[in-house]
């Protein structure tokens, strides 16, 4: 089997898994629940490693964040650019994660998660050159990634706030969680990037990159519908 074929298969499998997770497994409610929630409510004082783990777990299993990152790096070929955009995204979501929890900003989780779905649609549409083709302008991708990073951070903040974090050790635990988010993002990014690099070497990348972005957009639309459905049908989160 040639490297190209292996790369192509890996790439398709990885992408397929992401799209499947996003589109057909909405039952994997993307919050922090069960024993993790019980653990957080029971903490007294700073607890670095567990919160770091929770942050990383939230990111690695967070298909909405992952889809956005996939969209962002889809057509980034230089590692320098990958690092720049991911840093912008991290700055954005760290600001609102910390501010949201510290200033007790209450945002509706369904609304935030619907906008996160919109960010996925936006990035996939942008990847198709949609803004240039349709409106003749190319919005600054750096501003968009930073802006949507702020929204993703509110999403992270609502998940932490929903747990009613004990006030003792709040700042330390929140920062641990934030570091965990970055660690998890780095792990996910490495895997996505590895798959993308392999895929780009194959001829199928050129043929299928439009289709892939249409799929990502579809998943984004499904995420929006899923969250707006929750907003309308389940009331306030």
């Amino acid at each position, binding site marked *: 089997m040639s490297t190209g074929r292996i790369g192509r298969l890996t790439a398709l499998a990885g992408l397929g898994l992401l799209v499947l997770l996003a589109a057909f497994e909405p*039952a994997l409610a993307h919050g922090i629940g069960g024993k993790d929630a019980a653990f957080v409510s029971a903490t007294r004082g700073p607890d670095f490693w567990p919160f770091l783990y929770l942050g990383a777990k939230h990111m690695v299993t967070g298909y909405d964040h992952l889809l956005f990152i996939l969209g962002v790096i889809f057509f980034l070929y230089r590692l320098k650019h990958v690092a720049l955009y991911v840093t912008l995204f991290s700055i954005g979501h760290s600001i609102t994660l910390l501010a949201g929890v510290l200033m007790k900003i209450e945002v509706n989780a369904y609304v935030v998660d619907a906008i996160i779905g919109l960010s996925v649609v936006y990035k996939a549409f942008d*990847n*198709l050159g949609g803004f240039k083709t349709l409106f003749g302008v190319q919005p600054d991708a750096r501003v968009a990634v930073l802006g949507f990073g702020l929204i993703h951070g509110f999403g992270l903040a609502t998940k932490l706030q929903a747990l009613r974090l004990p006030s003792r050790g709040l700042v330390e635990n929140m920062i641990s969680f934030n570091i965990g988010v970055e660690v998890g993002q780095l792990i996910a990014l490495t895997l996505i990037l590895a798959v993308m690099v392999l895929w780009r070497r194959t001829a199928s990348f050129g043929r299928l990159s439009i289709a892939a972005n249409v799929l990502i957009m579809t998943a984004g*639309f499904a995420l929006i*519908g899923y969250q707006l459905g929750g907003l309308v049908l*389940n009331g306030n989160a």
Partner: protein
Amino acid sequence: MADTNEPAEGHVANPPNRKRLLLLTAGAALAGALIVLGAVLPAEYNVDPLGIGKATGLSRLWAPPQIDVAATAGNQPLARFYPTPFRSDEVIIKLDTPDNPEGLSELEYKVAMKKGATYVYSWQVEGIDIPEEFYSDFHGHTLPKAGEKMVVSTYRQATGSTSNGTVVAPFDGIHGFYLQNQSEKPVQVRLHIAGFYELIPPGQEGNLARIKTEGQIAEEAAKPRPAVPDVLN
């Protein structure tokens, strides 16, 4: 822009034209909407606009959001469990008129309970014309030994010819009713009681009037009568 040997960064190398872009975007939106309407709404929220949830069984994934409520009233648990076996009794208590010196127009009927035990009761006065002419005092107290104080708790004092309710014993003791007929006619009180308690033997504190339950009466009636000594012969 990018180097000649490197594809353009940030978007696809060969962007689709306007028409195709709109078509692809609309297709993605439509597919997303179908996924939401066909799968997500039925499975997550039990809303099934296309009937796909029912046809595929996806709707069965749905479970109503659960709100957990502590089963306590104050610091007391609302669900309780007892080693005492459950029992239920029907008791008919006859009360004479107050002006008949031979009869009994007032009495107490109680049962013995452990602290925290509970029973449910219902009684009606039969043969009374004016409900206000019947008085009852629902209460409980301990059975103190010499030198001890008696602990008393009053649950309800009222006139009226019927009462339904429940009590959780605040202490070990006897818990029940003082019943008083103030009318000009003899009456009977039909009491149904069920829960975790023990009957007080006739003649003891709490049942000095020697009231027997319908069950006890039936049991005695079923016993073979002792043979009558044949003194006449």
